[in-house]
């Protein structure tokens, strides 16, 4: 089945071993199955030195070193696992920077008067959307909503305070109009004799 470069691979024991390995890896991830069989063939080519006349003992020793096909298959990733485990891992990675960034933005919004309210509203909307899409960073997103709500409350308090202050200052002149703005200074110059 093989020509000169991997002549040792035509030994019946090797052929049987590779067939067994292929069967043992049937339920493994397909890429790992293909790679592993190719790599084991290369390994045996090297181990048997491309020797077409390899003795049964030499072949057995090389296959013993490789280990049982079950041992090798046990090391491979089961095909089903690659499908179920990949999406959550990806989701965590994707949501990885968004949630902390949102929380940081909401904290920044706390210290920016008025403009912060716009930032806070943006943060709340994004955090709620992420929460609804089932993002795994729920605590961070809840914190973002909480901080943003605080920003909105602060802004509302600040706005109310400002309104009260401006009403007060527009009425203020009528209160102070009666008082003398500056005391007059009388300088008496003594007359010279």
């Amino acid at each position, binding site marked *: 089945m093989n020509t000169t470069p991997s002549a040792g691979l035509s030994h019946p024991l090797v052929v049987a071993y590779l067939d067994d390995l292929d069967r043992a890896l049937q339920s493994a991830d397909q890429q*790992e199955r293909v*790679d*592993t069989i190719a790599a084991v063939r*290369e*390994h045996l080519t090297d181990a048997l*030195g*491309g020797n077409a006349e390899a003795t049964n003992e030499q072949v057995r020793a090389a296959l013993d070193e490789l280990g*049982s096909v079950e041992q090798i298959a*046990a090391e491979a990733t089961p095909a089903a696992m690659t499908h179920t485990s990949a999406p959550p891992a990806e989701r965590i990675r994707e949501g990885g920077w968004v949630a902390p960034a949102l929380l940081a933005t909401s904290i920044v919004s706390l210290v920016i008067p008025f403009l912060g309210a716009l930032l806070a509203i943006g943060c709340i909307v994004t955090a709620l959307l992420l929460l609804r899409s089932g993002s795994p960073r729920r605590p961070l997103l809840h914190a973002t909503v909480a901080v943003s709500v605080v920003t909105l409350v602060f802004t509302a308090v600040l706005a109310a305070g400002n309104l009260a202050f401006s009403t007060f200052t527009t009425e203020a002149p009528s209160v102070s109009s009666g008082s003398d703005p500056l005391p007059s200074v009388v300088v008496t110059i003594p007359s010279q004799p």
Partner: protein
Amino acid sequence: MDSPADAVLTQLRKGVLEYCVLACLRQRPAYGLELATQLTDGRLLTSEGTLYPLLSRLRKQGLVESTWQESTSGPPRRYYQLTDLGITALAAFAETWRPFSEDVSAILKGTP
């Protein structure tokens, strides 16, 4: 069939072995048999063949890449080498492993 020590070794290998493969490739690229022999000299691999599914995963993760090189003693060989991502992953492992293994040793101190 597995002794308690074998069961422990199986668990320990799971988190460590792939970084040991990366560490073997730190200095220079190596081919399969060379790597397998190096790793089975100690207790790191159960058998040489178990290296290959692992190498396939490392390639898929982009930590290792392979190239064919001419051999003086036979057909061309597939050489495995670290990628930049592999170098970074190995450095992160080494940095974490040292304090981690010190903590384990410290806590095991006095255990018969």
